[in-house]
């Protein structure tokens, strides 16, 4: 039996046809997305975060549409298939409150269900490797480009700070999050925030949220980043250990990898262009670090007052 027939048998959906094979289908209830899962444990984790983070939130993640018998997915050959809602229109970053509520709920669930209960869950804990950066930057250091030497120096200092923060909260649980958190995944349906999740193995820690904040900053302003953090804080407190863990992740100079990747000394022209991109990448991350640390400082001052 082909996939379309199987879906029609298993789900309360009619008139199914391909829109974009093999991921998007048209049905009598609109466009739906198909996700393919090779690993059942990964599917289970994705069901859980979607279900849990939707509770009480005005935002809706793309939960698994249930089959006729109430299952979250169907087995098809050697893989599992789940069906989700699908939308195209971007939600944008104007409605900070809604994003804040959604991310707050998401983080709450990500810390609560940190994968402990599921020993088979593969989670990666990204660790920053300064030595690898130093090796990569070696050949450029000799040329004494000021942006590189300054950034490497700053990266070392930030890493020290990050490690110092982490050592204070080393016993705290890290959240388990989707590998890719992007504001582009936020779509608009009926004016509410519909978040289209992914299907990769999750990662442990705040790196996905750091990437999200950087992307947010690129599309808005430092003030908007601060507003977003304030809204998140209403639903998931960043006042204590979790705030420090986030700060440690923000301060960690992850961007140095990306900066170094921009460099290409195969020709002078490419080298100049690479250095320009290096500076841009470094500066935007620097703004993020400055904005987030400022937000934490402002919050501390308010508490002190």
């Amino acid at each position: 039996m082909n996939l379309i027939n199987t879906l029609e048998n298993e789900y309360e959906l009619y008139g199914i046809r391909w829109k974009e094979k093999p991921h998007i289908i048209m049905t009598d209830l609109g466009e739906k997305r198909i996700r393919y899962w090779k690993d059942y444990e990964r599917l289970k984790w994705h069901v859980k975060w979607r279900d849990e983070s939707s509770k009480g939130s005005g935002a809706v993640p793309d939960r698994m549409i249930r089959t006729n018998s109430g299952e979250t997915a169907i087995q098809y050959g050697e893989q599992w298939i789940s069906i989700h809602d699908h939308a195209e229109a971007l939600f944008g970053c104007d409605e900070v409150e809604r994003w804040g509520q959604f991310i707050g709920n998401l983080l709450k669930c990500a810390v609560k269900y940190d994968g402990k209960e599921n020993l088979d869950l593969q989670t990666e804990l990204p660790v920053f490797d300064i030595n690898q950066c130093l090796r990569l930057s070696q050949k450029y250091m000799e040329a004494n480009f000021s942006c590189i030497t300054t950034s490497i120096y700053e990266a070392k200092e930030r890493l020290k700070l990050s490690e110092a923060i982490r050592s204070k909260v080393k016993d705290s649980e890290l959240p388990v999050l989707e590998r890719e958190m992007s504001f582009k995944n936020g779509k608009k349906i009926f004016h509410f925030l519909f978040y289209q999740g992914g299907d990769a193995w999750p990662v442990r820690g705040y790196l996905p949220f750091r990437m999200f904040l950087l992307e947010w900053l690129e599309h808005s302003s430092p003030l908007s980043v601060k507003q977003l953090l304030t809204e998140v804080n209403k639903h998931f407190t960043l006042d204590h250990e979790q705030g420090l863990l986030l700060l440690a992740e923000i301060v960690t100079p992850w961007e140095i990898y990306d900066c170094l990747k921009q460099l290409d000394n195969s020709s002078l022209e490419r080298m100049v262009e690479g250095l320009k991109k290096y500076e841009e990448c470094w500066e935007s991350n620097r703004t993020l670090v400055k904005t987030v640390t400022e937000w934490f400082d402002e919050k501390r001052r308010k508490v002190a007052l």
Partner: protein
Amino acid sequence: MTTEKETLNYGPVLFHYDLFPEKLEQHGKVKKVITKRGTFALKEAEMTEEERSWFTHVIQRLSEIGFHQVVPLYPTKFGDYTVQLGSRTYYLMPWFASDERNEKAKDEVLLDHLGKIHALTLKEQDFSNEVVEHSYQYLMNRWENRQYEMERFTEEAEQKTYMSPFELTYLSHFHQIMRMTEEAKRRLKDWYDTCQREKRYRSVLCHGKVSRNHLIFNPTGEGHLLNFEKAVLDTPVRDLAVYFRRAAHQREWTVEEGKFLLDSYEKHVQLLNEERGLLISYLSYPEPVFNAVDLYCSRRNDYSQIEMVHRLESRIRAMKKIRDFCDAIMIAPPPAPLDNSDTVPTKIHINDEGDHI
């Protein structure tokens, strides 16, 4: 008419059902949702997480034990029976248009359905002195405190040179009201003593908010109950007391009709003598009259004296009808055999902690 704003407000809820409303109409606490896929009733309520899960458990359990005259809940596309949005909870049901032809039969069907639910969920509880003691003391204290408040109101009124028409009306019935209060307390004490002596009490699944408005007829004329949000495991008398107290306030309600309806209920669950006594106790307590006094004290500027007096008189009239009804049902039939396991089918899950009277 549906405004675009309304559609957007309810959009996040209806999205869970893949419904796109063409029209939304407000009918009491329910929204009528008209879509290409049919017409639905969307109920908005305030429930805690625990209440939500108990509510859906009750609906599912009723179906499992064979009671199908409940307005079903539609699951969302994600398999949930309720949608939570902020502090609000929503659930979706089929829309049944009201059918005035069935209005007359409503009370009979309502009591018949209650009887069926009670019979299906009837459970002889293991005697717990703690539960009985707590229930008795709690209610007795509450009643005595209320009685004390009313006596104080009376004393204050009596000290006035010129009493208001409301106060005058209340005072002219005061002794009769107090007699009913004492009768309610005496009956409650009798129930408590019998429980202690017999070491028994029964619980059923109570609807919790029995009302004619919570019975509707489907297109084939079959009555269905709805609004189980306040459902609770308690004595069968709880639902009966709520029903009869409310019914007695209808102008056309008669003692004969009440007697007939209680008989039809008892075709399903024969009340034990002490339960009958408890029903009389609940009904005798003049809470509706006390509530009218409360309203007079707290909001006398919102209503005219004549409105307040009318309200009080109507409640006193209803209490008189209730007293006659209690006299009529006091002639107890022979006690029902306790071990009626043949007539008691599958039991609902009982949460003993939630039991109270």
